């Protein structure tokens, strides 16, 4: 037995074992999140409206997500053939989930818990994040349904409009941190919570407007993941279910999963870029690297789920915007402010280099 363990944990086999472990870990993390964030969402919605929420299946309705998953898996996937484009119709949900899962490859969950530490980590996330638009468009178009088509048109213009301020804020942060490697970005923010990028930019004068940068990122993330108040793409009260009106069974389930995974990824990036990643900020980590990773993972999750909580609260607080309101917000407010922060941090960096 120990011989097998020795073989698995030493060099020729270890990189593969590590890869498989991370694959299983990331996939189960994503699946568990997708299932239980639905439960959280329902509870948050209920509590905001002073209801108890799901209570019947298991204590506090905790088994409800499993029951829902079993139900979705048992159903038949109907496709509106011959009107629909059958192949694209089946590819779209997969093309939605896969890029979302791929983003987990570079997310640093803890000191030693980075599946792959690559120099262009941030770029990888935004590259795969951009796939989301195309999959939704494919889904809407291949369904041959007018609501789905309207929805996919909305998705494209919305995501294109919000990609710009989002990437502007990310460029600002890349200028401040000087790297796109997420592991290094987190390592730079070690120490007390005042070293986190959301605060350190103010006192190091690298980017004094960094709280606004964070807000713009957060708003753009809501819009990119098609969350309320920017959920025009799947406005239930107007467009049935948006791009995935025609989907049933696990095809629908995959879209739902991908949506929640995208939220997790977006909030993970916010945590890494602005809130110090897995650094606790209030107490030092223990010396043992594995223990430190575990506590770091806990801190990461605490920050991640706090952000997700506010994403959910935003959904149940703010009414849906109209389409021109959405685009006005992007082009008239977010892009100018993001540009100002970008310019300001550029000028300040140049000035501090001069003296």
């Amino acid at each position, binding site marked *: 037995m120990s011989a097998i363990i020795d073989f698995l944990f030493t060099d020729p086999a270890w990189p593969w074992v590590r890869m498989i472990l991370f694959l299983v870990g990331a996939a189960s993390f994503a699946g568990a999140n997708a299932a239980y964030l639905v439960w959280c969402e329902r509870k948050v919605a209920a509590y905001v409206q*002073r209801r*108890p929420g799901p209570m019947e299946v298991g204590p506090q309705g905790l088994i409800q997500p499993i029951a829902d998953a079993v139900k979705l898996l048992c159903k038949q996937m109907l496709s509106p053939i011959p009107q629909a484009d059958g192949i694209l119709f089946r590819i779209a949900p997969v093309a939605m989930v896969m890029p979302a899962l791929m983003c987990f490859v570079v997310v640093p969950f803890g000191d030693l818990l980075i599946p792959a530490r690559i120099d262009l980590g941030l770029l990888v996330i935004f590259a795969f994040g951009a796939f989301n638009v195309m999959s939704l468009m494919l889904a809407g178009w291949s369904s041959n349904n007018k609501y789905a088509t309207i929805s996919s048109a909305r998705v494209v213009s919305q995501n294109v409009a919000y990609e710009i301020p989002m990437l502007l804020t990310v460029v600002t942060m890349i200028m401040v941190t000087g790297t796109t490697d997420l592991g290094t970005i987190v390592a730079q923010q070690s120490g007390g919570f005042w070293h986190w990028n959301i605060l350190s930019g103010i006192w190091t004068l690298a980017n004094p407007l960094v709280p606004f940068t964070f807000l713009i990122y957060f708003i753009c993330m809501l819009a990119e993941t098609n969350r309320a108040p920017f959920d025009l793409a799947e406005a239930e009260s107007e467009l049935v279910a948006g791009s995935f009106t025609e989907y049933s069974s696990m095809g629908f389930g995959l879209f739902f999963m991908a949506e929640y995974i995208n939220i997790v990824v977006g909030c993970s990036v916010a945590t890494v870029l602005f809130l110090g990643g897995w650094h606790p900020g209030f107490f030092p980590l223990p010396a043992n690297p594995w223990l430190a990773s575990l506590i770091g993972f806990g801190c990461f999750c605490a920050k991640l789920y706090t952000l997700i909580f506010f994403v959910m609260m935003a959904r149940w607080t703010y009414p849906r915007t109209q389409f021109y309101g959405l685009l006005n917000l992007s082009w008239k407010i977010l892009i100018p402010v993001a540009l100002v922060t970008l310019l300001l941090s550029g000028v300040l960096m140049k000035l501090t280099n001069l003296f």
Partner: protein
Amino acid sequence: MGYFGEIYSGAKSLVIGMRITLDQFFKNFRGNSNVPYPHATLPIPEKYRGHIIFTHDPETGKSRCIACKSCERACPSGCILVEGEKKEGETKKSVTLFELNFTRCSLCGACVEVCPTDALDFSKRYNLAGTSKAVYAKIDLVEDLKKRTQK
């Protein structure tokens, strides 16, 4: 309102909205007034008017009804049918048939008011359902009382 004024007032309204929903959210942890309906129910008010039933006389274990037909006459909708007979060895008549047509009853309470022996009262039954009209077109109060006394 200028450009910055608009941003300021917009942001302020967002903060106020978020504060209200957060407030409501955290109030739930101090308890809320929800009743998980099928598992628990609110107490039915004393004056609730369900369909009429016979009151249960604790001395005889039977109905106090003397089949005087006052309720039948008093009913404005004509939805009560009473029959009675005088049994041997008893001074009063006793009821043998009391049919209520609840599909026409307007719950006015004239029958309960007019009853000389307080034999009628409102029930607290509110979750009524049946698969045919006949179930509520003929509610047999005598049978109903029998069932209740057996329990």
